[in-house]
């Protein structure tokens, strides 16, 4: 089971019907790092991470070409098990989307999907995942109350716990803090730096400070292309491309 979970993208193009949303993407994302995707709205960064767990399959008229490999498996292969792929590549969305059921059932959702039925095993997974998401202390007494009663920040950490309970290798986060207050944002950022020991994290963010705080590498997207991809401190200190520089210095027209 010594599989690798780095992500390799080669010559990837993606179209929504006629719209060319991703243009010849080539990128190598390392294991156990936090990789940030930055760029203006509509530049394709969300589209890009959604192609890593094939959530784009849900969109009609979405066509993709090229190669996206996780370890040495091409995830767009005909015989890819999409459900297993999504179990291994967890996703946290922009708006917290807990299911309207108990905290416990939310976290136990994916393990149950994949056949864990025993109460004591589920208990362990639920506790471990909630601890990993830094939420255990706050919800241990209300595991069986409806998750919709949690605050926004708690809901988002619950969604992280829910994704972790599936035992993924990669965690995709699509602007996970954009709907949250600064304190909740801080908690989730701290969480990411801890989680990267066990997981590969790809995060889309509009907040460049956030990218510098939490990520090891950063990719700058513009109009569906990756303009620049480098170690985060280098990219921000010494951008190679004029467009990157304009964007990160806020002089973007």
């Amino acid at each position: 089971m010594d599989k690798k979970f780095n992500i390799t993208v080669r010559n990837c193009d993606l179209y929504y019907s006629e719209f060319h949303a991703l243009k010849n993407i080539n990128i190598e994302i390392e294991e156990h790092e936090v990789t940030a995707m930055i760029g203006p709205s509509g530049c394709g960064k969300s589209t890009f991470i959604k192609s890593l767990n094939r959530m784009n399959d849900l969109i009609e008229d979405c066509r993709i070409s090229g190669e996206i490999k996780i370890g040495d498996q091409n995830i767009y292969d005909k015989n890819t098990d999409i459900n297993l792929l999504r179990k291994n590549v967890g996703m946290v969305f922009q708006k917290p989307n807990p299911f309207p059921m108990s905290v416990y059932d939310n976290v136990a959702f994916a393990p149950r999907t994949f056949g864990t039925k025993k109460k004591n095993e589920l208990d362990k997974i639920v506790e471990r995942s909630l601890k990993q998401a830094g939420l255990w202390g706050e919800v241990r007494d209300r595991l069986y109350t409806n998750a919709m009663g949690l605050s926004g920040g708690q809901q988002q950490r619950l969604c992280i716990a829910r994704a972790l309970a599936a035992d993924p290798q990669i965690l995709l986060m699509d602007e996970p803090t954009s709907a949250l207050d600064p304190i909740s944002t801080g908690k989730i950022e701290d969480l990411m730096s801890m989680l990267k020991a066990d997981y590969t994290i790809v995060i889309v963010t509009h907040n460049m400070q956030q990218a510098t705080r939490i990520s090891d590498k950063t990719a700058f997207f513009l109009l569906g292309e990756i303009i620049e991809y480098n170690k985060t401190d280098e990219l921000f200190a010494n951008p190679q491309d004029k467009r990157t520089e304009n964007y990160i210095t806020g002089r973007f027209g």
Partner: protein
Amino acid sequence: MKESAHRRQMLKYQVMKLLTQGALLLSLAALITVIVFILVRGLPYVNLQLLFGEYSSKNPTIKPALIGTLYLVLISIVIAAPLGIGSAIFLTEYTNNKRRLIHIIRIAVETLAGIPSIVYGIFGYLVFVIALGFKYSLIGGGITLAVMILPVIVRSTEESLLAVPRSLREGSLALGSSKVRTIFSVVLPCAASGIVTSLILAIGRVISESAVLILTIGMVVNKMPKDFASPGTSLALDVYYFGSHGYPEQAAATGVVLLVLVVSINIMATIIGKIYGKGELADG
């Protein structure tokens, strides 16, 4: 000049307020009159003998109608609920809203909901009573009622399903759940209160229906139905029968029973909608 314009505005406002108020009062009065009138004329004759006594031409009872109505509700819901909910799931979860065909199906469903019930009645008569040779039977009437309430169930279930936020479906699929698990574990539970409410309202329609049944179940008011294939009667039909055969007291009393039944069903639907609908879909 300004002063008089203002006064005219105020006058218009007052007149309009008075007119609408009057309209409301008249509407309420009409409604209350109906209810009070039926209660006053019928309530004194509602008793155990009427409800559960043996039928005789001197003392007609509604026991056969209670059983018949129960049969009809069972038959129609058992058929229409799975078909209706299934169709709604297909329309919302497995098709693209923009497709032409789906649009046409939606319009067709809405049109079906608007067909006068007597037309369903003649359909049931021609198909079940005549063509299939069921003669007058509860099963023929029940199936016809099922066809009649189907579009209602499809429409309201669809609305409940569409009200479940897309983000929940995505959340489930992103955890590696299959589409089937997503539908059964996330979408349907979220929509459950709406679906149950729509079923209860459909039951209300079955109980109130008379036109379909006049042509399909035979209006046999004096005999207990033996089984699904027997002819029978329903509460609504008894009202008609008693009213037109010289039993005005019993007609009014049966009207009271029907009224109470349908009103309680509607209240129940509202309560269920409220209890389950609370907070569970806070996210828009």
